[in-house]
């Protein structure tokens, strides 16, 4: 299997992308969710986004997912060629590489009244993917929901829904994966599967940003830790730095 193929055997055609936040601010009326965040996430990094509830992690991820526009500042995307060299130019704010972004959010983003297979087919079609039936079957097999392909999502347990939500986010082989507390609700088996998937994605050069406020095995894979507090970056271990001290210190707090 080629190095940057997903587990369904389809080669990943997306080139690595990084995210650049330039002085991003977000206000909701009188509430400042983000205050002047400038952060450069290089292609292929695995960033652990840490912070208490209300620190701004979800808002930052939603802005990166292009679901929300910042009140001020901008978010851009940095591309790198396949052989690992940066092309030097960060794409401007007009560039919206939606096909390359996948997100696992607080909500499942799934239709309860459709079956698992129907949900995945719908998004496969919307993302313009080919060989949909095979792809969907492969994804369901991969996350262990093959036997429930024809059941309504409404009948799934929390863990199963989370697994399907993750499968949905990965369906289109995103170059950027945004994860908002993805381990929440996953059972033991799901956590093992998820960690393995993350490791494979990291190997394939996917840029991963994962927010969490609880300890979780996937944090071992992180190459960088960024801690947010009250909407600003409090600490950042940096692209070349070691995230473990920051991760360890925060784990002790949690």
């Amino acid at each position, binding site marked *: 299997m080629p190095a940057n193929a997903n587990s369904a055997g389809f080669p990943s055609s997306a080139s690595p992308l990084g995210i650049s936040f330039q002085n991003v601010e977000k206000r909701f009326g009188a509430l400042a969710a983000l205050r002047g965040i400038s952060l450069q996430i290089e292609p292929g990094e695995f960033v652990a986004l840490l912070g208490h509830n209300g620190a701004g992690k979800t808002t930052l991820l*939603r802005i990166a*997912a*292009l*679901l*929300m*526009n910042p009140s001020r500042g901008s978010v851009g995307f940095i591309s790198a060629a396949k052989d690992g060299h940066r092309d030097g130019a960060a794409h401007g704010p007009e560039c919206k590489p*939606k*096909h390359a*972004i996948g*997100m696992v*959010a*607080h*909500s*499942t*983003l*799934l*239709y*309860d*009244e*459709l079956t698992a297979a*129907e949900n995945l087919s*719908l*998004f496969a*079609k*919307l*993302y*313009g993917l080919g060989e949909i039936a095979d792809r969907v079957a492969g994804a369901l097999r991969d996350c262990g929901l093959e036997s429930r392909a024809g059941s309504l999502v409404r009948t799934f347990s929390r863990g199963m829904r989370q697994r399907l939500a993750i499968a*949905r986010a990965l369906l289109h082989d995103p170059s950027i994966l945004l994860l908002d507390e993805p381990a929440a609700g996953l059972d033991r088996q799901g956590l093992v599967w998820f960690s393995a998937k993350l490791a494979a994605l990291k190997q394939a050069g996917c840029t991963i940003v994962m927010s969490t406020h609880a300890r979780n095995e996937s944090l071992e894979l992180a190459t960088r830790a960024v801690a947010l507090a009250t909407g600003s970056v409090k600490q950042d271990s940096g692209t070349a730095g070691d995230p473990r001290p920051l991760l360890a210190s925060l784990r002790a707090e949690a």
Partner: protein
Amino acid sequence: MTTVGAAGILLGKELRLEFRSRELLSATIIFALVVVVLFSFAFDPTAAESRRYGPGLLWIAFLFAGSLMLNPSFSREQTNETLDALRMAPISPFAILLGKMLANFIFMSVAELVLVPVFAVLYNISIVGIVWRLVLVLSLGTTGLVVTGTVFSAVSAQARMRELLLPLLLLPILTPLLIAAVESTASLFQEQPSLDRTRVAFLAGFDIVFLTASWLLCDYLLED
């Protein structure tokens, strides 16, 4: 992915969701029937009065039933925040809106297909010679209802008291449509049915203006 293509995919999704449960459609049809029947209890119309007030009653029943039916259009997307999933996909915002408009048009049309014959029977109005012209008027009127209703469903889904807000926003805007549609239908129900070009043009104009406005404003409508 073209806008129309994406809208088609979303239309398929809406139809699949609805025909699985069929609750929205049946509730809409029953509600419209209730309005029609209530009228006859409240007013006890003679045959001549039925002919005179029939068109108005029909369209009021459609508008009321429509305002109730259009609400879940966007509020349904709030469970599990599936609207976010649609917005993240590489499709234009207008595709999302258009898909829902098409779905709502089909649902309303199905409801009308059931209601108009029932209405004709209850009020002794013959629709035999005027079917195609009636279909034209119904389609144009329904398009206007569905276009503005879907947009306002997106608006009211983000506000409080959305079940009350949607009719409140929608019905005043639709009064020109109501007048034109009722007049057209009335002239079709007469002894010598006729279809005035001005009325049809007005209805078409209404639809085009608001469809264009929806297209121009859809980015602002769906953003967070």
